């Protein structure tokens, strides 16, 4: 037997209080001269055994009543059949409801969330009178006690959202509630579609929270309501990239859309574009389950920013059919070149010029600390790798969404940035120099052009290169495997290392066909830094954003920015709120995989009724209250005077005189 409040057991010596009071009472006797001693002695002899037994029973009752009171206050838990028999209903049932967008997938005429609510209400109904029912939803993770199981479907906390779920965090919230409220036996019912991106099965938080649940005095049971059935045809859309770029005197939006489907058949689907409230429709020819769709949206002469969205036709899940975006005003993106070599700096400066033909700013490395990078989107560094405050400045720049590209300084050094560094320079031995045959043409600065033309990287000659050391993501490599262009992500930004220089003794990069598009693409990518505040994932808004007043722009209906995707305005600022990207990932876990996460805890599906009783512990305080009352009643009966109120009259014995008859 274990106890929820074991420190109360420190008061167990209090059970001796009745004995001490009894002994003190006996010590407080008063002397009384007595004549009829023979009867007293005889009565004492005769009544001793019976009286002693009675006295002992009274004391025993009092001691046990105090002991039962203390045990009751300590909230005992009994295991095995005893605990199960005495506490068949859990003290608390914590419902973990997945309200993520993926739960709105329809199967059999209703969404998974609606099915979950229905099943949870049915299962919880029988425990309404005996158990506390606590709801923790994935969107707020705030525990709320439910009085009536049937009211689950009507609660605002169970409505659909465009958020993602974080199962380990929800389990942590359940654990915190159990600890704070000192709940007894508890069951945690989890209703989810087992989406892997929501469960985070590889997250280290699982081990800690499951271990903590297993370490509770009261054993916790887990019940899973798995809704990972195969669904009907469904497609989701999300905006992968969005950039505003100039096209002559006009502007256009370059959008990269990812469309995920659960059917691999080729199909042409209509896609509705809403741009600043104007709707237009186009068709997308889809192939395979995952399709990347590039679109250019003509903005005309529009200079200011705006908003829009892409929508797919209705399918199994209505909440993943729309992706919202906000684009900024037409501003010139600016690059900064850090180089001490004039020729190199000039080439880079020109290659990274803005669309308004403004060449990039060139500064020496020593001035980077004081350089104004607020309106800069690309930083080109051709100097020994920075250290100290300079390195921190670059780190901060990249973390905020900026792009940094390093070109070889020409000398090897021990310094590193983003885990990468420069090795020894190498000169090509062959006449034709180093060659690049393969590179990533799908995405990144070396991707194919809009016309699906490859960059002439294979025709570029490299006579000299400098090795890129450290862990890296290689986008382009030489024939011998050495990296030409490597990338690392830092925060919201990217860091690139390019192994050669646009100088004649290094390579033919300076000719431009590769260097210019590469740097222009990086300039555009770095522009995210200036536009990043315009996008947010639903349910992941910062506290600063949440503190503002937001009005829905895309709908006349009042929407809650915390739970619903859309475009919102607060003052002059527009914000596009979309489902978290992970919410569109179709990967779900199977039942066994989900159960393995709860190692050490009894896990059953909601439909299964019987647990292995040996593993369970029930709170049995009611037994001790009952026992305490029983002992108190017993004590009361034992101390009752037996026919004391009317002593047996002595035959012939006169009654006490009335007051007026008493002698003077």
């Amino acid at each position, binding site marked *: 037997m274990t106890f929820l409040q074991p420190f109360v057991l420190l008061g167990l010596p209090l059970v001796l209080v009745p004995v001490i009071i009894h002994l003190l009472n006996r010590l407080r006797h008063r002397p009384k*001269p007595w004549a009829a001693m023979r009867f007293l002695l005889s009565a004492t002899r005769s009544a001793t055994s019976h009286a002693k037994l009675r*006295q002992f029973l009274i004391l025993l009752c009092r001691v046990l009543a105090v002991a039962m009171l203390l045990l009751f206050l300590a909230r005992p838990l009994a295991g095995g059949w005893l605990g199960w028999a005495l506490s068949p209903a859990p003290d608390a049932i914590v419902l973990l409801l997945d309200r993520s967008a993926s739960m709105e997938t329809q199967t059999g005429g209703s969404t998974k969330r609606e099915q979950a609510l229905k099943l949870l209400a049915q299962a919880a109904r029988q425990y309404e009178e005996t158990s506390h029912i606590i709801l923790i939803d994935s969107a707020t993770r705030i525990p709320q006690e439910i009085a009536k199981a049937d009211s689950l479907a009507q609660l605002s906390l169970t409505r659909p959202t465009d958020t993602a779920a974080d199962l380990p965090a929800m389990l942590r919230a359940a654990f915190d509630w159990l600890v704070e409220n000192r709940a007894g036996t508890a069951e945690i019912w989890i209703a989810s579609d087992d989406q892997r991106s929501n469960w985070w099965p590889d997250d280290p938080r699982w081990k800690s929270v499951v271990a903590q649940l297993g370490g509770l005095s009261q054993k916790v049971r887990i019940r899973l309501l798995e809704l990972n059935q195969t669904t009907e045809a469904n497609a989701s859309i999300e905006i992968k990239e969005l950039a505003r770029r100039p096209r002559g005197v006009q502007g256009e939006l370059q959008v990269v859309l990812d469309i995920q489907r659960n059917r691999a058949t080729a199909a042409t689907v209509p896609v509705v574009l809403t741009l600043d409230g104007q709707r237009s429709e186009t068709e997308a020819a889809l192939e395979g389950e995952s399709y990347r769709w590039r679109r250019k949206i003509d903005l005309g002469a529009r200079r200011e920013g705006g908003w829009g969205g892409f929508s797919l036709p209705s399918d199994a899940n209505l909440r993943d059919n729309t992706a919202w975006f906000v684009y900024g005003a037409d501003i010139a993106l600016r690059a900064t070149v850090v180089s001490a070599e004039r020729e190199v700096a000039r080439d880079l400066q020109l290659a990274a010029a803005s669309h308004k033909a403004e060449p990039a700013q060139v500064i020496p490395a020593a001035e980077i600390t004081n350089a104004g990078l607020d309106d800069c989107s690309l930083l080109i560094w051709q100097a020994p790798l920075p250290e100290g405050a300079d390195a921190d400045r670059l780190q901060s720049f990249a973390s905020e969404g900026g792009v940094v590209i390093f070109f070889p300084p020409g000398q090897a050094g021990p310094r590193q940035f983003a885990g990468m560094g420069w090795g020894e320079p190498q000169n090509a031995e062959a006449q034709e120099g180093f060659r690049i045959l393969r590179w990533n043409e799908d995405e990144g600065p070396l991707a194919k052009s809009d016309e699906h033309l490859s960059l002439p990287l294979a025709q570029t000659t490299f006579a000299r290169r400098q090795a890129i050391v450290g862990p890296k993501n290689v986008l382009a490599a030489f024939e011998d495997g050495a990296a030409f262009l490597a990338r690392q992500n830092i925060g919201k930004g990217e860091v690139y290392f390019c192994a050669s220089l646009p100088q004649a003794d290094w390579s033919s990069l300076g000719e431009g066909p590769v260097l210019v598009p590469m740097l222009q693409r990086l300039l555009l990518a770095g522009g995210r830094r200036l536009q990043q505040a315009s996008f947010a994932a639903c349910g992941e808004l910062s506290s600063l954003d949440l503190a503002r007043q937001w009005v829905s722009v895309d709908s006349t209906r009042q929407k809650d920015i915390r739970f619903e995707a859309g475009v919102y305005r607060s003052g002059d600022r527009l914000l596009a709120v979309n489902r978290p990207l992970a919410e569109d990932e179709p990967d779900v876990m199977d039942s066994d995989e989900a159960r393995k996460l709860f190692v050490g805890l009894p896990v059953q599906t909601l439909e299964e009724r019987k647990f292995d009783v040996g593993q369970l512990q029930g709170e049995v305080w009611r037994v001790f209250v009952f026992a305490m009352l029983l002992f108190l009643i017993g004590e009361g009966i034992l101390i009752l005077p037996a026919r004391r109120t009317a002593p047996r009259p002595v035959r*012939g014995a*006169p009654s006490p005189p009335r007051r007026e008859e008493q002698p003077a």
Partner: protein
Amino acid sequence: MAESGAWLDSQVLNRLMHLTLMARSPMEGSVSGLHKSPHRGSSVEFAEYRNYVPGDDIRRLDWRVFARTDRFFLKEYEAETNLRCYFVLDASGSMRFGQSPGGKLSYAKRLIATLAYITAHQGDASGLICAMAKSALEIPPRRNPAHLKVLFEALDKTEARGETGLITALHDLAERVRRRALVVVVSDFFCDLEPLLNCFQHLRFQKHDLAIFHLLDRAELDFQFDRPVRFVDLESSLSIVTEPSSIRDEYLRQFHLFLEHLRGGCHEFGVDYRQVVTDQDYERILADFLIERAHLVATSP
């Protein structure tokens, strides 16, 4: 110590003086008096006729009967003599107990003093025996009213202490006093019941009229205590600590059993038994005692 006669209350005496202490059976006195004698003699009270037998005094022949019947009959009259009364006071330590001042002993002295006064006033002799642990103070009965002073002084000096010597005193009394007498015993009778009843039987066997006043205190009858008490024996150094509530039932059972046996023994041996609780008015106790006795004598053949 109280003065002589301090146990008397003049107002009580005035109210009781019209009553007489009568013996239930014939007494053998030395002088004529109010009480029947077992002997026939000259008196104004006709008793019976009986046949003449040689040797009888011919002066007691009833000649008128002889003239009518030609047979000799003697006319006999009731002899009336005085009463000799022994008051036996139990002076054991237990008589000190009581909620009233002086305890049961004072109550007993008041009873005895009043009865002795009435006895002397009606011309009968009264004596006193104070039964103590090892000895007994005895004052022989006298008719002289001045004898009351001696008796009262003896009552004054008597203190309750030690074990009871009542049984010895009563047996001694039964052995020594051959002539019929009224023996009045005032005690709580906290002694062995069988020897006590033997005493009563002994006295009755000697033709004594025996009346006993059984003095009890209300606390002894009710035994109402709510806390542990150390009871100290008044006749010895014995003491016990007990929880009265735990033994009360058994105590009362045994006490009442004793009272029933005592009353039954008294009834068996013709002893005039009166249970007296010390919170009762002693005047009423004595009045009832005297009236009942007078009524009994008056209605007896």
